[in-house]
């Protein structure tokens, strides 16, 4: 069996176990948060009878084990229940809000990799020079300020004082795009609305940069440190003595090995962006799942809390599996050790 399949199978199995654990944990925690979900859902003025009826409908008077049993049974039938926050099926909410967050996080992730890694490589290549100092200072700035601070700064600079980018939302109101995938960049292309594609892309730039800036700094700093460490390795000296060009040494012998630890951190950063996206989504009025997740927690919307956490956990696990596979692809030692074990 190919090594990548073995790795994939192992990761899928452990991910399944993790998801079961997460579901049990979040199911319990959601019920420990203070407040009666039925009362919150029906409003402060609802009658006691109505609250009691809703509690009965939600099985809130049963033991937590019985409630979990109902949850698993419904989950196996593809039903995550009704959100008390939006009064719609949780699956429908997630289907509507998840693509918005994923689109934002994917673009932010792309920006993080496309800018962070080259910056780190350039800093390492010109270690101790002026450009290295500039990149290090910028990286430190990116890492030290949280995403929501960047969101407000970018909005002030590029939407308020210099009105170049849009302030809120995913697309200009006047465009009506039929949702196929939920990813506006794709849906606009599917619809052949190229102007709308440009508009949706334009709306993505500020929030994606705000979300990515911290990751860019981290990726640059990590890549720089790893490459500098690699530059001190004997085989680099050997390559230099063989007369390989500096460009080839940097890209072929120094950059590739230093990617392995960076990839792991970038994978974790990507997952962290799913959580950090909340504040960026709030500032840019981005109708995503992170914002929805916080809203349902505040309203103790049990079904929606569990559904949202499960979906974010699953996304996190999928990204990590992909990262593991990529690392195995880049690093032959992992492939061989997997095969031996």
């Amino acid at each position: 069996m190919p090594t990548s399949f073995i790795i994939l199978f192992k990761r899928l199995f452990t991910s399944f176990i993790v998801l079961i654990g997460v579901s049990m944990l979040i199911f319990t925690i959601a019920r420990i948060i203070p407040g009666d979900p039925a009362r919150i859902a029906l409003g402060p003025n609802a009658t006691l009878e109505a609250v009691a009826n809703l509690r009965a409908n939600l099985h809130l008077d049963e033991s937590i084990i019985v409630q979990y049993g109902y949850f698993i049974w419904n989950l196996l039938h593809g039903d995550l229940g009704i959100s008390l926050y939006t009064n719609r099926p949780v699956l429908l909410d997630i289907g509507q809000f998840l693509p918005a967050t994923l689109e934002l996080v994917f673009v932010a992730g792309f920006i993080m990799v496309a800018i962070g890694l080259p910056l780190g490589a350039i800093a390492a290549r010109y270690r101790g020079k002026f450009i290295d100092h500039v990149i290090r200072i910028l990286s430190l700035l990116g890492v030290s300020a949280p995403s929501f601070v960047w969101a407000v700064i970018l909005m002030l600079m590029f939407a308020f004082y210099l009105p170049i980018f849009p302030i809120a939302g995913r697309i200009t109101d006047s465009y009506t795009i039929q949702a196929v995938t939920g990813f506006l960049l794709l849906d606009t292309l599917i619809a052949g609305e190229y102007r709308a594609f440009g508009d949706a892309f334009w709306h993505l730039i500020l929030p994606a940069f705000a979300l990515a800036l911290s990751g860019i700094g981290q990726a640059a700093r990590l890549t720089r440190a790893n490459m500098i460490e690699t530059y001190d390795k004997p085989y680099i000296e050997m390559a230099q003595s063989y007369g390989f060009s500096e460009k080839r040494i940097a890209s072929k012998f120094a950059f590739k090995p230093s990617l392995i630890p960076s990839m792991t951190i970038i994978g974790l950063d990507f997952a962290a962006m799913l959580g950090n996206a909340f504040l960026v989504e709030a500032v840019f009025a981005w109708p995503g799942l992170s914002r929805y997740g916080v809203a349902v927690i505040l309203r103790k919307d049990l079904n929606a809390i569990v559904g949202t956490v499960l979906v974010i956990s699953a996304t996190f696990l999928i990204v990590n599996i992909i990262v593991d596979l990529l690392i195995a692809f880049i690093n032959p030692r992992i492939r061989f050790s997997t095969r031996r074990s």
Partner: protein
Amino acid sequence: MNKLSKLIIAGLMTASSLTMGALSVNAETVLRLDEVAVGELDPAKASDYADSILMFNMYDTLILPKQGGPGHVAHLASSWETDGASYTFTLRDDVKFQSGNAFTAEDVVFSFERTKALGAGLSYLFGDIESVVAIDANTVKFTLARAYAPFVASLVRLPILDKKLVMANLGDGEGEMKDWGQAFLSGNSAGTGAYSVVSHNPQEETVMAKSSSYFAAMNAAAPDTVRLRYGLEAATVRTLIAQGQHDISSQWLPPEVMKALVNDGAQLFKEAGTGAFYFKMNTTKAPLDDVNCRLALANAFDYETAVKMIAVTDDVAQGSAATGAIPVGMFGANPASNTSSQNMEAAKQYLADCKYDAAEMDIEISWIAEVPLEERFALLMQSNFTQLGIASHIKKLPWALFAEQVSKAENTPHISQLFVNAVTGDPDTLLYGMYHSSVPGTWQSPEHLNDAEVDKWLEAGRAGTNDAEREAAYSALNKRLLAIAPTIYGFDRQSVFVASSRVSAPALTDPSKAFGLDGMGFSFRLMEMSE
């Protein structure tokens, strides 16, 4: 700035104008406003401000509050008569729903039954209605279990639904009525209103379109489309309004942001007379079970500073000085000139008469975590009480935890801070739930008051057969509530909104056009867009 920088900025500006070009293509007028998420489309579940805005624009009621003063006028009804125990409404025969179905008495009966069956939102207002019967297609009779003067006012919270349309769209559920159309009405409108829903994303926005055949008065320049956005951050609203991409803010914008926008040329809309901000004292917990202690705290509170803390500009604040338990403008309110003020001498005297030792007191002042403004008032109170030699500590409580704690008197903090509104504009809906001893502990009644005289006047207010009787009952109630001080009456609330200069809303700027009911000033049909 070097040449390259200039080129980059020029390129970005060009791209920006290309992508935003779509904005100017459309000639229709669009009104954009925001509120706290989430907007509830189903009118039987409406209770929040956003829900009310949606309800008042997509649905109509039998009566409406009279503009500029107390009382009500016929709306879907053409007239009504009463013998005290029953009310018979003659309905207009020229009204059609947005679906094209004719409006009849059956729709009124259906709307009432649905509201009662769901038991959500403000359905508790209709608990004393014994039956609702359609006498004929244009006559409907409400029979009450007992005399209940606020009944007519409560009808502003009974929106009329299109029975045929809802019945044709029943979702999964048990019994003949299945889900009572809840799934359908969570994404669609089924009313006679001036606006109908075009799209609804509960986290992002609700888009509404103007009806071309509305039966009542509509401004010719009323917005063609309305976009009610949810959950916008203050910084976002500030930028959107400044860039001309937003028209009316929510009332929850911090005063500093409102002031900055006013300085940039924005105008202020106001809505007042239906509620107040209260500091509620737990009358069952020592030392506040002693009326003298409560009066000491009430006299020590700095009312003037409290109003300054909510000032938006030199002339406009998010409230005005309180005159008692009842906001100015309602039955029983004291004259606007009788404002409460700090009186430390009186406070010291009351404290001396209190059976508890001030040195041993430790007052718990809570504030709701979701309302940061309350922390400032908590600090103000702490400072005021320190002047009396009373120690206190401040406790932050999330709303959900607060609502749970107040159900039991022993768990309720000494002092809780709350905005309370009369949901129908009638003082009964403001005061009964707060002070009547028969009402179990709720978020409205952290005082846990049990006072026979207060109960008597509250019941007299409900039973009054004319305005004079009700005025007398609520006036006596106000006097009693000031004497026993279960609450520090902070200030009469005034909701303030920032608006761009392109929108005009007489119901929110001209007191003679105001409705005296929260949210009704946002009747879009009465607004005017200048472009």
